[in-house]
């Protein structure tokens, strides 16, 4: 695949602050996606804040600064977009998200609604169904013996539970993964990945807009619950469909990458796989550690609302700051043996789901799915082996595989 940039941004109006390392790393290039780790390390070692000349943005790649930026939403805002595009200067490619791309107080209100829709209490009700679906899926795959762990497990399992939990009708679900892939590509710079995704977006956008309407959502699902909050006045009827859209954008593909990451980890770390088999109660932490280790969501941007000093560097107002979540999750300053996948690691504090007021509101759904799949594998499967060529999938924000051929044997 040849990813040349189809439109470079205009020359930067303000020169970056002094005393800051300039790096010519392009974190949205195929070479970077193929192996981000040396570049992550170079960025962490270059300083607490760096400047990436390729896209004229500031970057933070160490845990401490990523955490600090995530937890200072007044200085590092989301309402100017969490991608490279600055909504104060460019028209967003779609109407902005009412939660992800919003600041308090607007964010506080919409966030409260989604928190209730996706609360721990709601997860308790979903749990048995999600666990049973994972067992059925693993039984089916065991009967086959060989399969692609991405399409037939990491995609197939969330597709078998999430759209139903959301309350989507059966027709048109094939748009869901392409739509999410588009959304996550669109956070990136105007490279070929982004431009092509947007050029092909019309049918997926039409599907999503339609599905977000109240009449298209099954009673009892997440979508209908969101619309119910329009009746109580917590949100307006016009806001409800856009909040449903957030779940369609962020709720499926992310877990596909998360489950794919976990299976890929277990296939590469046989000792961890054996530990999981011996103690399936480690499944939930094994999934969480995979989210740290692979960081399916690699990056998000913020925009400075004022001049700010961070890590001894002054960043002017109105600048984009790129947070490398995946790099923070492997920073030796924070983690012991960060490049080792350890299913009993005390992983609390990783930023794979973000941190602060925007921290993933759907993380409990993701964990439930991950725990369900890994528990079913641990109970039923003896061996997992990669038996074909592993292929990477390229996306400006998401890190994961296109294909992971594996064979499994029954326990």
């Amino acid at each position, binding site marked *: 695949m040849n990813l040349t940039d189809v439109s470079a941004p205009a020359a930067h109006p303000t020169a970056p602050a002094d005393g800051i390392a300039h790096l010519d790393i392009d974190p949205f290039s195929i070479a970077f996606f193929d192996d981000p780790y040396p570049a992550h390390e170079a960025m962490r070692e270059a300083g607490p804040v760096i400047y990436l000349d390729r896209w004229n943005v500031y970057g933070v790649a160490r845990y401490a600064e990523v955490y600090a930026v995530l937890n200072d939403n007044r200085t590092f805002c989301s309402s100017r977009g969490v991608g490279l595009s600055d909504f104060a200067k460019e028209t967003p490619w779609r109407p902005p998200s009412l939660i992800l791309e919003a600041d308090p107080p607007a964010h506080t209100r919409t966030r*409260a609604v989604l*928190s*209730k829709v996706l*609360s*721990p*209490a*709601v*997860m*308790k009700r979903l749990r048995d169904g999600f666990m049973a679906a994972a067992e059925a899926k693993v039984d089916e795959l065991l009967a086959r013996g060989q399969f692609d762990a991405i399409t037939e497990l990491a995609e197939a399992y969330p597709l078998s539970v999430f759209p139903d939990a959301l309350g989507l009708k059966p027709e048109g679900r094939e748009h869901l993964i392409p739509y999410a892939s588009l959304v996550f590509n669109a956070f990136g710079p105007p490279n070929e990945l982004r431009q092509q995704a947007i050029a092909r977006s019309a049918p997926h956008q039409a599907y999503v807009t339609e599905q977000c309407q109240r009449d298209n959502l099954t009673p009892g699902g997440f979508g209908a619950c969101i619309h119910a909050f329009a009746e109580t006045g917590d949100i307006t009827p016009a806001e409800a469909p856009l909040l449903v859209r957030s779940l369609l954008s962020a709720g499926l593909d992310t877990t596909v990458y998360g489950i794919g990451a976990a299976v890929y980890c277990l296939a590469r770390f046989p000792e961890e796989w054996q530990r999981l088999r011996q103690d399936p109660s480690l499944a*939930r932490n094994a999934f*969480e550690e995979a989210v740290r280790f692979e960081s399916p969501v690699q990056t998000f941007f913020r925009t400075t609302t004022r001049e700010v000093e961070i890590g001894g560097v002054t960043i002017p107002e109105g600048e984009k700051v790129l947070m490398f979540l995946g790099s923070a999750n492997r920073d030796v300053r924070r983690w012991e043996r960060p490049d080792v996948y350890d299913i009993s690691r*005390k992983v*609390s*504090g*990783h930023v794979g*789901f973000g*941190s*602060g007021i925007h*921290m*993933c*509101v759907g*993380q*409990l759904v993701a*964990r439930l799915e991950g*725990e369900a799949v890994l528990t079913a594998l641990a109970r039923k499967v003896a061996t997992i082996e990669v038996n074909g060529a592993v292929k990477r999938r390229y996306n400006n924000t998401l890190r994961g595989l296109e294909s992971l051929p594996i064979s499994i044997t029954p326990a």
Partner: protein
Amino acid sequence: MTTITFIHPDNRSEDVKAEEGASVMLAALTHGVDGIVAECGGNAVCATCHVYVDDAWVAKLDPMSDDEDALLDGTASERLPNSRLSCQIKVSPALDGLVVRVPERQS
């Protein structure tokens, strides 16, 4: 430094010297107290930092927010009248001697 006692389901107890301003959850995590999972790292999303506060201490804590109240409805171990989320309890000198019980399960 404020001393907090964590009592495990098997009645084993651990004393921790907690730093002021940190949360009880963070004190448990930094001192390696098992059973406080804190999947969301203290962002009030997960309810896996659940504790039962010793009856003598319940009234001395700041009252819980509506968010914490709602999250407690989803704890893995039974919610009791003295249930709290340890990430929402801030360590202060007034809490010196606080005793909390760690539940059987967090997820």
